[in-house]
């Protein structure tokens, strides 16, 4: 049912936790099911130096949190802003259709974090 990458991230989440000195922290909850994702980024000179996540909900939500932090760490803010739901899905090996909204939550949370950054 789930891909190998998926299972690996589920049992060994990357970048889980909080940041001591974050540039931005956002927590979003999924209106459909109540799943939650918190992203914390430390940005320096337009580049994401570190990203951390916390997630509550079904396995896809947890895995999306882990994968998206891995994907954005080291990216410029501009490049990170260009990430799509599909990029995320490709990376984690797809999701059943009824779980697509987990990927949407992750992208939405990232978008919000980057907006907030710009707003600061």
């Amino acid at each position, binding site marked *: 049912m*789930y891909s190998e990458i998926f*299972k690996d991230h*589920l*049992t060994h*989440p990357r970048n*889980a*936790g*909080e940041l001591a000195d974050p540039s931005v922290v956002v*927590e979003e909850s999924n209106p*459909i*099911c*109540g*799943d*939650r*994702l*918190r992203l914390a980024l430390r940005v320096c000179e337009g580049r994401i130096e570190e990203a951390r*996540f*916390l*997630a*509550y*909900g*079904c*396995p896809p939500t*947890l895995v999306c*949190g*882990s994968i998206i932090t891995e994907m954005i760490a080291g990216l410029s803010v501009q490049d990170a802003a260009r990430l799509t739901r599909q990029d995320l899905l490709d990376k984690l090996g797809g999701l059943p259709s*009824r779980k697509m909204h987990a990927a949407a939550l992750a992208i939405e949370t990232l978008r919000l974090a980057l907006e907030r950054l710009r707003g600061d």
Partner: protein
Amino acid sequence: MKRRVYLDHSATTPIDPRVVEAMLPYLTEKFGNPSSVHLFGQEARAAVDRARQLVAELIGAQPQELIFVSSGTEANNLAIRGIAERAAPYGRHIITSAIEHPSVRGVCQALEQRGWEVTRLPVGEDGLVRVEDVRAAIRPDTVLITIMLANNEIGTIQPIAEISHLVREERQRGHRHLWFHTDAVQAAGRMAINVAELGCDLLSLSGHKLYAPKGIGALYVRRGVQLAPQMLGGHQERDRRAGTEAVPLIVAFGKAAELARQELDARIERMRALRDRFERGVAERITDVVFNGHRERRLPHLSNISFRYIEGEGLLINLDLQGIAVSTGSACSSGTLEPSPVIRALGRDEELARGAVRFSLGKDTSEEDIDYVLEVLPQAVESLRRISPLYHR
């Protein structure tokens, strides 16, 4: 390969090797159709008769009071729809509980859409229906009460005999068109069942919950109770359920019922001891857990635990990757987003409902199995909590 521990016996059980052995001749040389007049047919007919006797003995019924069907779901459909069809002229009100299996819930809902009224009794925090609530819900147009014997998610055992007592009182008062059905699918093989003591009119069973294969179930219908058949066009099962009998499965069910009866006490004792050891271990090793369901009035093989801050499915998959099979809520209702309605019915908040996991033991679960789970589970919970924003609040 790593150890595999199956703790999902409430979803389905492995088939007992003695059951496979008993059914094997009916998968090979004894393949006749019981409706056939010749020797092949008579041989099959005799096997079906013997199996019916054995299943009847498991619940203290007469063989002719049993109808073989294809699943517990079909037994529930046949019971409720079969009574509803007959009873409609006398009233269109059904009483049920808030924690029934989806197959009972689904049929009741379908009747509602056709104009029936359904009263769904709440349960207390302990997962038990109150007999007083049943009494208060009975109306002159009530024709059916359907309340499960034991719940499939939390294992609580409902006061069926007491409700039967009520029903008999009602009948004595002249309320004659009132029937009482109980879904014993989850209970059978895990507690003693005697239809005379329970006093119900109909009772559902399913083979694959007691070490027989999937694809066979039975409905007990007390002698004299009229039921409208739902599968039409054949004289099988005394005109109550058409279709060629699934002989090998029926034989398997019979054997499984026989073993369940013979070994019941030993199975119960063993499962309860291991289950209690498991729960003690969890309570010692993991904080912020809530045990669901009444502590005493429940099946001996089942433990339902809500782990705060995390969601059950992540834990399920985490354990699965370490060889441990458990479930969240009922296997049958999986594939939906809603947290278990059963746990919600206990009054638990949504977080606890989503964090509920069912561990269900079997007759062959071992101490080593439990110890392995007690070793793996705390880490799995801890690792999920570490990434939970609720835990870091």
